């Protein structure tokens, strides 16, 4: 309960910060919208040239891509920890975090909220509806609920990977280039996994579960029965990986060395 109220308190603080710079806010919203529009055109143009990929039709691939954008938008709004090492460990901001009575990871997530990334979800939804209607998918009454559950599960899985990688900063103070690499690998989840070879598929499912952000949950809405088991595993995988990530984080905090003054 305390954490829920803290979430809204920090959200309020974030809004206030944003409203301090009015011009900035307007420009940012405009550029975000423009960015998403460009993204949308890009997706339609690129996939316009694809026909069939390992048994997936063009529209199905577009649908998966669209679905991916939704958990990805949730992830980018709430798990903004790609610069954790620089911002919190090297600069010693972690000291301040650790003297406050809220779980350290939760505080960092709250401090780094970036709600404008949620615009990406709008693009995702447009893509989904566009692709869904050309395939002729029907929406059952429970589909929106499953959609939300799967999207959150995917976002948790995505977040878990990045939390685990951010935790490396507790063990080594050297800058590492794993973060940007991970963003690239994350993109593999946007395409059907059966176009990759077995090893990559295994990795994307069980080690870096990016496939649970895009293709697996999307397969359910596309009525691909052979993938249903994976689809419904999405929220579970998301939770399990997230819990593992939090354990790694907690271990890391014990190793925190602090920055010199």
């Amino acid at each position: 309960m305390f954490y829920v109220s803290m979430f809204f308190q920090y959200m309020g603080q974030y809004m206030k910060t944003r409203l301090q710079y009015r011009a900035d806010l307007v420009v940012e919203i405009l550029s975000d919208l423009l960015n998403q529009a460009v993204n949308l055109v890009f997706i339609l143009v690129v996939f316009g040239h694809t026909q069939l990929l390992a048994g997936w039709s063009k529209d199905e691939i577009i649908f998966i891509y669209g679905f991916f954008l939704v958990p990805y938008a949730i992830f980018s709004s709430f798990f903004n920890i790609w610069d954790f090492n620089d911002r919190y460990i090297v600069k010693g901001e972690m000291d301040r975090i650790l003297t406050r009575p809220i779980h350290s990871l939760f505080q960092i997530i709250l401090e780094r909220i970036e709600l404008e990334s949620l615009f990406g979800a709008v693009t995702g939804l447009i893509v989904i509806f566009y692709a869904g209607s050309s395939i002729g998918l029907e929406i059952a009454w429970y589909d929106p609920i499953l959609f939300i559950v799967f999207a959150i599960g995917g976002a948790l899985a995505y977040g878990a990977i990045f939390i685990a990688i951010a935790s490396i900063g507790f063990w080594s103070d050297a800058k590492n280039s794993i973060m940007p690499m991970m963003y690239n690998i994350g993109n593999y989840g946007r395409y059907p996994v059966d176009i990759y070879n077995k090893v990559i598929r295994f990795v994307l499912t069980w080690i870096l579960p990016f496939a649970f952000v895009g293709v697996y949950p999307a397969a359910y809405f596309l009525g691909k029965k052979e993938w249903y088991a994976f689809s419904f595993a999405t929220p579970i995988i998301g939770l399990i990986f997230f819990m593992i990530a939090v354990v790694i984080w907690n271990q890391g905090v014990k190793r925190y060395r602090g920055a010199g003054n």
Partner: protein
Amino acid sequence: MSNAIEVKQLRKEFKVFSSRSGLKGAFRDLLTRKYKVVPAVNDINFTVKQGEMVAYIGENGAGKSTTIKMLTGILTPTSGSVRVNGMDPHREREKFARTIGVVFGQRSQLWWDIAVQESFRLLKKVYKVPDEQYNEHMAHIIETLDIGPLLDKPVRKLSLGQRMRCELAAALIHNPPLLFLDEPTIGLDVLVKVKIRQFLKDINQKYNTTILLTTHDLADIEAVCDRVVMLDEGKIIYDGGLQSLKNNWAEEKEIHFQFLEEVRLSQLESLPLLFETSWDYDEKNQTFIAYIKEESDNISQLISAVVSHFKIKDVNILETSIEEIVRNIYEQGISTAVRGV
């Protein structure tokens, strides 16, 4: 609860990577790394009673910050035990954090872009402070620190002194029984320093708040603290009252002279004086420095002797700084220092 802080055999080691020299060494470093284990805090023991005001001093790198970070639950000790407010800081961190206030001179607790009062409001929620307590308690703090007019300004527009006073207020929102201050007066002008010292004494009297502060300013300690704990290379080398520390170790005064005419060191050394004086020449500032024992009227005797022989441009009498006291103790050996306890 009588003891706010209990520290037993507390130790923190850091692994430091020591690189070999040369290109060949760099290649060898790639394969096998050599680590040195350095104890930043070396088996220290001390207790602080509720309501005490303690200065924690030492040279840079002596282990002050490391100790404070272990006491506040930021760092996990390598070995030994820490009990603060009856809790283990790093194990029960979130519960523990509610019972302490922390001010790190170089780090801000406040939100940079928004008004000070908005930061206060959020911290009030974070620490679950009830409205009544907040209104009554904070009204007093805001008035004593004189920050009322600053509350609606964004933190980024405040001066260092203004910000520091706001930081102090922010650390006290939940009225903690224990307050840690790491260099609270660094870089501040004298008026602000005086105000902060007075404020610390006030809250200590009013709420019996325990205060542990690190500082390089002897005046801070004189004004605020009744006890001094001094660290050197991770070990406590002095723990006791400020007065006995000064009596034993700060007996020397420095007197700086600048002359209008050319004067040689040997001329000064041959001045007829009844007590021992050692002279030094600081070439950079063209200043002659006399070191004398602070007894009876030594200072006036020295100055009158110098003035009667040479034309002086400037005289400066300096209080011994903490660094010098530490250096004195360090040079004369730890064993004699501990006897002063």
